[in-house]
């Protein structure tokens, strides 16, 4: 049996999983803090806007969002598989297309800043 080409989708998934594990809890906490009007110093709208305006900032944000989207898409594909939904090609296509569309949208919005 030939070796699988799964690493193509698995590597970004693993990278995204790591990014999610490190960044998402922080983002959730910051989101709550912002909601109750207690934004930590250095994370005000103006400062974050300035961060997203720079080339490096755009790259970091794109990396975090695109990898997280890809990881979530792949995880959802695996979850569907675990639940016995065996239309894997269809599910994979739908989810990966959603992740790619989301990534392109992220790039477009970031470039507009």
């Amino acid at each position, binding site marked *: 049996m030939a070796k699988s080409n799964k690493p193509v989708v698995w590597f970004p998934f*693993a990278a995204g999983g790591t990014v999610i594990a490190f960044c998402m809890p922080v983002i959730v906490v910051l989101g709550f803090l912002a909601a109750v009007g207690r934004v930590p110093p250095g994370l005000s709208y103006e400062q974050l806007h300035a961060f997203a305006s720079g080339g490096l900032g755009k790259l970091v944000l794109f990396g975090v969002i695109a990898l997280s989207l890809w990881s979530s898409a792949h995880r959802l594909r695996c*979850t569907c598989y675990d639940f016995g939904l065996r239309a894997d090609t269809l599910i994979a296509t739908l989810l990966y297309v959603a992740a790619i569309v989301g990534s392109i949208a992220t790039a477009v919005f970031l470039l507009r800043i």
Partner: protein
Amino acid sequence: MTPLKERLVQLDVLRYNPDTDTEAHFQRYEVICHEEWVVLDALNKIKESIDPTLNYRWSCHMAVCGSCGMMINGEPKLSCHSFLRDYEGVIRVEPLTHFPVERDLVTAPDDFMEKLKRVKPYVIGKKKPIEEGEHKQTPAQLMKFRQYSMCINCMLCYAACPEYGLTPHFVGPAALTLAHRYNLDSRDEGRKERMEVVATAEGVWECTFVGACSEVCPAHVDPASALQQLKIVGSIDWIVEHLLPGGKP
């Protein structure tokens, strides 16, 4: 010395006799057991004093041989390691899921044995004349794979794995973990041969990291971690083979 506490234990045991039954059915047994006993002791007492026709496998009674795996209240367990005091009410005992039942609680392990053979779970050694002595290994080299060498082939991980249940071709947790164990061994040179089986769609890539294998493993092998490490190894191999100049596909 205070006498051991006794208790009436009720067990619903799945029975199946291929010579007379068309379908498996539950049979209720009631047996007086010591509070300190395990489910296997209860089954032994049933066989000795109530029903000698009851069939099940066991050998060591100390979680080493790996032969008494069965479903206890729906969970894959070693019956010699499942204490009666941890269960209330009627205890449901069934053969390991995902394996064909031969008789009562006895399942056929042939599929697992065939998969075990495929991953070559032995040292494929460096050729060295015997006069040069043994292959030495440092404690650090041993620690790399020691945990993965503790597998007792009890197949609880196969019964717990939903992927194996849905896709019987999947090589499965224990066999892949043993492949990883020999890949990590400093005396071994068989990684390339094993990856031909491990890195296929039926190999490690069928795993979706549910993690149930590690939860049920009585030897704390943590097969799920071995499989994730194999995915990293397989991915790096893929990059070398497909993207680097000079890499062979």
